[in-house]
């Protein structure tokens, strides 16, 4: 049997009724047991690439298909999806959508029932697949009762039960919290190493891809721009940045430390490589004292705008989501809230809008008890933007969408027009004023929701997981927007799982876990409380772990937050 498991030759594909090719002129051969990382910006064709491997493209979508793709010896055009599905397991982004059975065991069995395996064989394979993803003992649970990471592992088990040659995972961790992400990567690596399953994994997580993948491929605009082992792939930062892909933080730090080409044979791409290289450098670079502007944030003296005292909240089903949280947020602060799903982040901020009413304790907004306001009244002072823009758009033009709140609040017509015009201008959306919101890109739709919220001129803006499911550029664009609003004097609260994105934006970090406030400090100090972060299964960004390994922690230790700061502090002599 040939050792080449996936063979793609001169492949191009155009969706039915599309003008542009989604994928253009791609040739690629994967060896059995290889781990391929796929990176690239939103719209690069990554999902289309995944769907070609089990024939959804072109069987489901139609369109124009050029070239040839063979997977495990089967031509994907000649064989239907249900047949290809037995060689190619698929795991998708959304953990909710891909689970269709009412029990964990039933979920794993579903595909096996479809291919008419005898019941005895199904009963043999289900526990084996669950064991491989460490979900044994949960057979009779409802998939809904599992955590995000468990759900994705269940989706992997369901794919695995078919005993596929190839496992394709399309951004399997982008909706997950840090623990879930770790769980999924650990399982995928285990399957690859010990069972020799070929892995194709799409992800924006550069650090993980650098650690696990044998080869990495860069897709952008439907073209294959680079394909190389990670050590080689991440050297070419110019190409990566130009296509919205962020090199690992250690790579960025060393590139800044040794900017002259050729001064290092290769830049490190993983933390162990970075440490090994650091130890080889002669003379060893040392930390130079750098003065950061990290005194008390200017907002520390301002009045308190949002406050909870001993806040408890218990859901109807008895889940204690908050267990005595006391926190005060001042006018003009930029606060990030991080922590695992179910830790109480959203539950906390929803109290400020009176979307939830405290079971015990007090919640004050602008010095008054929150219970004296209705949701629609509070919305004028506190803008709340949740993750999915499509649940928050109800009008047929962008202009009307932005005016929606003002009309509800019965502003005079000329005031509505004036405010809509200003907001559209501020958000650079004037060109779209007359367009239907749903004809715009996801990034633009998110900005419409922000614009519609800003039209009420709220003093506080809360963004609930704005970076989830976004590529690097998308996440950056949203954070840039929050910075602009912060500079304009707004109080900003951002809930996120992406710690590495926060330096340069957030000033204060709240860490929530198990319904409690575990840590509340300025970002620079909070990020170096690595033991505390680990307690709630958060991993500090790579650059912080590198700095810690180089310099033992002490009160006087420098606390660089970004690759640039680390490089500036570490100067080669």
């Amino acid at each position: 049997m040939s050792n080449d498991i996936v063979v793609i030759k001169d492949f191009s594909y155009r969706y039915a009724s599309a003008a542009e090719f989604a994928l253009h002129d791609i040739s690629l051969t994967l060896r059995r047991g290889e781990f391929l990382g796929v990176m690239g910006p939103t719209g690069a064709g990554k999902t289309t690439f995944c769907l070609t491997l089990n024939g959804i493209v072109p069987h489901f979508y139609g369109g124009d298909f050029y070239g040839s793709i063979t997977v495990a010896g089967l031509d994907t055009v000649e064989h239907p999806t249900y047949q290809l599905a037995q060689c190619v397991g698929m795991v998708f982004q959304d953990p909710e959508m891909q689970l269709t059975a009412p029990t964990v065991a039933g979920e794993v069995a579903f595909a096996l029932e479809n291919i008419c395996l005898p019941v005895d064989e199904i009963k043999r394979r289900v526990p084996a697949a669950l064991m491989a993803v460490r979900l044994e003992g949960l057979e009779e649970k409802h998939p809904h009762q599992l955590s995000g990471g468990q759900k994705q592992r269940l989706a992997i088990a369901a794919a695995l039960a078919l005993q596929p040659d190839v496992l394709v995972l399309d951004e399997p961790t982008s909706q997950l919290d840090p623990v879930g992400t770790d769980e999924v990567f650990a399982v995928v690596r285990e399957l690859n190493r010990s069972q020799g399953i070929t892995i194709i994994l799409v992800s924006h997580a550069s650090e993980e891809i650098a650690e696990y993948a044998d080869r990495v491929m860069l897709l952008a605009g439907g073209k294959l721009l680079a394909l190389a082992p990670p050590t080689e792939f991440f050297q070419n930062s110019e190409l990566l940045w130009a296509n919205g892909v962020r090199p690992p933080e250690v790579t960025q730090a060393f590139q800044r430390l040794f900017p002259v080409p050729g001064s290092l044979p290769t830049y490190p791409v993983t933390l162990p490589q970075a440490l090994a290289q650091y130890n080889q450098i002669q003379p060893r670079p040392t930390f130079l004292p750098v003065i950061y502007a990290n005194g008390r944030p200017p907002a520390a003296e301002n009045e308190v705008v949002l406050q909870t005292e001993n806040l408890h909240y218990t859901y109807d089903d008895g889940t204690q989501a908050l267990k005595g949280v006391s926190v005060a947020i001042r006018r003009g602060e930029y606060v990030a809230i991080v922590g695992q799903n179910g830790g109480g982040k959203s539950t906390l901020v929803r109290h400020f809008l009176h979307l939830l009413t405290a079971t015990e304790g007090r919640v004050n907004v602008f010095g008054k008890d929150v219970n004296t306001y209705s949701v629609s009244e509070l919305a004028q002072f506190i803008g709340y933007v949740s993750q999915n823009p499509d649940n928050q758009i109800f009008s047929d033009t962008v202009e009307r969408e932005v005016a929606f709140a003002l009309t509800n609040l019965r502003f005079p017509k000329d005031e509505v027009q004036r405010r809509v015009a200003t907001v559209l201008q501020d958000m650079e959306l004037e060109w779209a004023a007359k367009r239907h919101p749903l004809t715009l890109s996801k990034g633009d739709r998110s900005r419409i929701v922000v614009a519609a919220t800003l039209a009420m001129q709220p003093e506080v803006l809360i963004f609930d997981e704005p970076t989830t499911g976004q590529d690097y550029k998308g996440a950056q664009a949203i954070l840039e927007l929050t910075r602009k609003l912060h500079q304009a004097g707004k109080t900003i609260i951002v809930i996120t799982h992406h710690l590495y994105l926060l330096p340069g934006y957030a000033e204060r970090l709240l860490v929530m876990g198990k319904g409690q406030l575990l840590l509340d400090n300025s970002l620079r100090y909070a990020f170096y409380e690595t033991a505390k972060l680990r307690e709630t299964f958060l991993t500090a960004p790579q650059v912080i772990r590198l700095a810690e390994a180089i310099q033992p922690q002490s009160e006087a230790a420098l606390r660089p937050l970004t690759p640039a700061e680390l490089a500036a502090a570490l100067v080669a002599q």
Partner: protein
Amino acid sequence: MPSMYVQYVSRPSFFSRLDVRVKLLFMFLVSTLILIWDNIFYQGAMFAVVMALAFSSHIDRALIRKLFAVMLPFTVVMILIQGLWSPIGQTVLMTLPAWVPFIGGKLALHWEGLVFGVMVAFRLLTPIFALPLVVMTTDVNDLVVGLVRLRVPYKVAFIFSITLRFVPFIFTEIGAITEAQRLRGLAIEKMNFFRRIPIFASMLVPLILGSLLKAQTLEIVLQSKAFSGSPQRTFLNENGVKLRPVDYALLIGELIFFVGAILTRLILGWGGFVA
């Protein structure tokens, strides 16, 4: 995140343990007889049985309340319309006072019309409460196997089960959209029924688009799991759909009752209109 599952009852009950075919026949019987009978007492008794089963099967009280709250305006409007306009109305209860616009002083509420209105209400409400009673006490997979055993094509049974999975998704979506609207200053709690209508209408676009998108994703997911809609497949839990003596007894009992009710209606005229 929206859940894709019908949260079926947490505690088993006599009704939930029955074979799915007993329950499906029950649902069919209830929904048919409620139409065949014209007698408000017969219908009332049938509705009472359905409600008693719903409560004893631990169906979520909040859901029952919500269903009632949604149906109440329709029911009231329907009973009034029948009371005012139904041609069978003879006994005048009261003439509408003159201050009612357009119809005041001209139209009267009739006793027979009101009774007929209540009948129509029972016809509407009984199936609406019987459906969740069956669906929420049955494992979706058992439902699919049960339907296939009843010679329903597998593809149809599967679409049915997917539809059921969409119900909670749609409720979650409606919740999310309503919340987003309140967060844009819409004080929906202060609005009357008629002012709410355009608000509900504006929800439809995101709701339908969201559902279509989910449906497409779901189809891709299913195909990727080697699903082709072919009736040739194995059923892992076939043993979960099994007729016990009690199920046989109930099936026979249901059939006898059903046939008996139709025969007595046709031959003896039982269940005719009374007012």
